[in-house]
């Protein structure tokens, strides 16, 4: 195995320490130094009064979103047509919103709400403004519903169809659903819910656009007001702890689900189908999922009439920055995943330590991760230029997904097949290029796809690290959005959508081909 190679172990550890460890150490050292100078700063790490209210509100918003996504995503996944069938395209179409950043969804729903207000005003009904907790909850649920549905589909694919068939022999469809299908898929469904919770906790774009003050927003506001990184680090401690508590149980099941071997056809291979009543409810969930796609398309297309095309053309350099950033982040993530993934798959002390190290960046809110990258950049300024820092920040934030997915894939790999590759190797590199790489390729493609999408839509950390004149499309749109949903924003969102699709389609196709070929 790769992990028996000393060179591999050393380079994997060094790479992980450099990318994941350095910003964390820099943040920690800075916070400790500040605490030693002024011990009273310690109170920032203990939520009380206003910060406690903000933390509770953040947890409530993220928790409600996660539960809504769990229910609707599970329902929708039960009735979606199989990917290989004639209606397989419908399944793919419903996942398109996954490539769109949260604030673009927010724009679409703002526009839809405005349109609805105008329609009902004709019959003298005045709807309240689409603002506040409810609006933020609705939009966040729409944003993460495709992700929750995808996780639910992965959960079903991991269930041995014979277990479901066995349940059908002595029980109804509903009984099989409640007693066998849901409990067996439960761990992965729960993990998906926790992942949505963590992503919501870290997002500040939607709460800020709907005037909901959350903890992540407070961190950004605090940094903007004081400029003191150590304060933000200490202030972030409660949120990081909450997110870590949710992440640790979630990550393993999700990675396992994503890297499940192609032979596992799961529930779809069983004769089980939801009963008529359950199917009705599930179809409602699919309608909800479709509503977001239709809403996005109609809203963005209809908003184009007021577009200032000069602004759109002017945004071309921003789009180029986004694509370049995604490319470099993917390259870095790939290197890290290949080097550190095998170490994580190992249950050694080193593997477990690296796993914990990799989990922490996932729990960090965007602004804190950004400040960490800034600090790390200042520590080794000669090596990291201002151009490289954003790509390193993205790798710090999102490469953990790639490392964990590769780690999970290798942990589930057929050891005998791997060893056989070693035994029959006749030329140096045969094992690596003909056995090991092809085995991890589908998961690697999926991981890089995920990283690219997250990078293209990221705002919280990018705001901190992008050098002047190097504004990616996400920041351009985010800045425009604060002036309202204009035609220019719609046009930019469509451009971002097109860029995300361009990045997604080749990655998705290669993943699917590799996954199908086993």
């Amino acid at each position, binding site marked *: 195995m790769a992990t028996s190679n000393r060179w591999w172990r050393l380079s994997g550890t060094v790479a992980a320490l450099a990318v994941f460890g350095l910003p964390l150490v820099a943040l920690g050292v800075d916070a400790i130094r500040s605490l030693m100078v002024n011990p009273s700063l310690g109170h920032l790490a203990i939520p009380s009064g206003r910060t406690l209210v903000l933390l509770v509100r953040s947890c409530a918003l993220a928790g409600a979103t996660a539960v809504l996504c769990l229910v609707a995503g599970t329902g929708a996944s039960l009735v979606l047509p199989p990917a290989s069938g004639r209606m397989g395209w419908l399944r793919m179409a419903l996942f398109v919103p996954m490539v769109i950043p949260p604030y673009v969804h927010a724009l679409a729903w703002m526009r839809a709400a405005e349109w609805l207000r105008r329609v009902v005003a004709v019959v003298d009904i005045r709807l309240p403004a689409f603002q506040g907790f409810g609006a933020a909850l609705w939009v966040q649920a729409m944003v993460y519903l495709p992700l929750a549905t995808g996780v639910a589909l992965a959960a079903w694919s991991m269930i*041995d169809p014979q277990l479901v068939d066995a*349940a059908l022999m*002595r029980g109804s469809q509903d*009984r099989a659903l409640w*007693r066998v299908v849901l*409990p067996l898929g439960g761990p992965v469904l729960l993990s998906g819910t926790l992942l949505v919770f963590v992503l919501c906790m870290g997002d500040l774009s939607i709460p800020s656009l709907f005037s909901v003050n959350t903890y992540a927003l407070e961190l950004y506001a605090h940094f903007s007001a004081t400029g003191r990184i150590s304060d933000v680090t200490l202030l972030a401690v409660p949120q990081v702890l909450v997110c870590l508590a949710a992440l640790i149980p979630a990550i393993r099941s999700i990675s396992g689900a994503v890297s499940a071997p192609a032979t596992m056809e799961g529930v779809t291979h069983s*004769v089980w189908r939801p009963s008529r009543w359950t199917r009705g409810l599930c179809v409602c969930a699919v309608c909800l999922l479709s509503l977001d796609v239709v809403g996005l398309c109609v809203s963005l297309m209809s908003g184009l009439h007021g577009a200032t095309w000069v602004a759109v053309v002017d945004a071309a350099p921003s789009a180029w920055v986004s694509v370049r950033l995604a490319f470099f982040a993917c390259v870095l993530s790939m290197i890290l995943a290949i080097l550190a993934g095998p170490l994580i798959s190992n249950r050694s002390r080193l593997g477990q330590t690296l796993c914990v190290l990799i989990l922490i960046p996932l729990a960090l809110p965007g602004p804190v991760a950004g400040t960490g990258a800034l600090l790390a950049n200042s520590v080794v300024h000669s090596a990291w230029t201002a151009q490289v820092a954003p790509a390193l920040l993205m790798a710090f934030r999102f490469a953990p997904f790639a490392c964990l997915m590769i780690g999970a894939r290798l942990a589930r790999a057929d050891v005998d097949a791997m060893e056989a590759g070693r035994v029959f190797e006749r030329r140096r590199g045969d094992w690596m290029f003909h056995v090991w790489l092809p085995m991890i390729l589908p998961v690697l493609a999926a991981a890089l796809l995920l990283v690219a999408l997250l990078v293209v839509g990221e705002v919280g950390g990018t705001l901190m690290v992008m050098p002047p004149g190097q504004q990616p499309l996400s920041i351009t749109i985010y800045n425009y959005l604060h002036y309202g949903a204009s035609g220019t924003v719609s046009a930019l969102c469509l451009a971002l959508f097109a860029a995300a699709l361009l990045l997604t389609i080749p990655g998705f196709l290669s993943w699917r081909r590799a996954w199908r070929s086993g």
Partner: protein
Amino acid sequence: MIECSALAFSVGGRTILSNLELTVADGECVAVMGRSGAGKTTLLRLVAGLAVPSEGTIRVNGEVASVARSIRMAPSRRDIGFVFQAAALWPHMTVAQNLLYGMADLPRGEARRRMMDALDVCRVAELALRLPQQLSGGEQRRVALARAIAPHPRHLLMDEPLTSLDADLRSELLQLVCEIVRSQDTALVYVTHDETEARTVGGRQMCLENGLLVTSGSA
């Protein structure tokens, strides 16, 4: 009674079963043999209602259960016990819960009594509170058998239930199956690729070849 007439099953343009005729009377034992990929498991899944036939009709107890491209009677209404090739025990339920699942329509006391009887007969009564992953391969097979017989089904379908067990355990479990079938007067369709097993089960022996079922002997 199970009656299959003009039964056919194809998938992806490949014919697995064609024009198959099979009748299993109440209390009768039928052993179905055939090479790997001959369609033995498919036949059992069709009878159980876990797969939809391409052509033909399946009747269970005189009622139409499946017709071409349609399942008319849900698997749970066919009064069939199924022992899968892998034990297929639900990993999140204890042994007792695995058995009780199929007897939800019975009064609780009666269900518990039948569960204990089935576990006793299969000699795994002491494992009732264990989870499947805490059992050995042989114990899992016994529990799978107990789960199938506990509700006293009129028909029992067994899909190579003793594969990958050692010879001693296999012969012991096979004897157990025969005793149970005789004592409960259950119709048995036993799928295997082992001729000795087929002979031990007794009754009619049939062979699946090129999608057709032919009689090869009787005990």
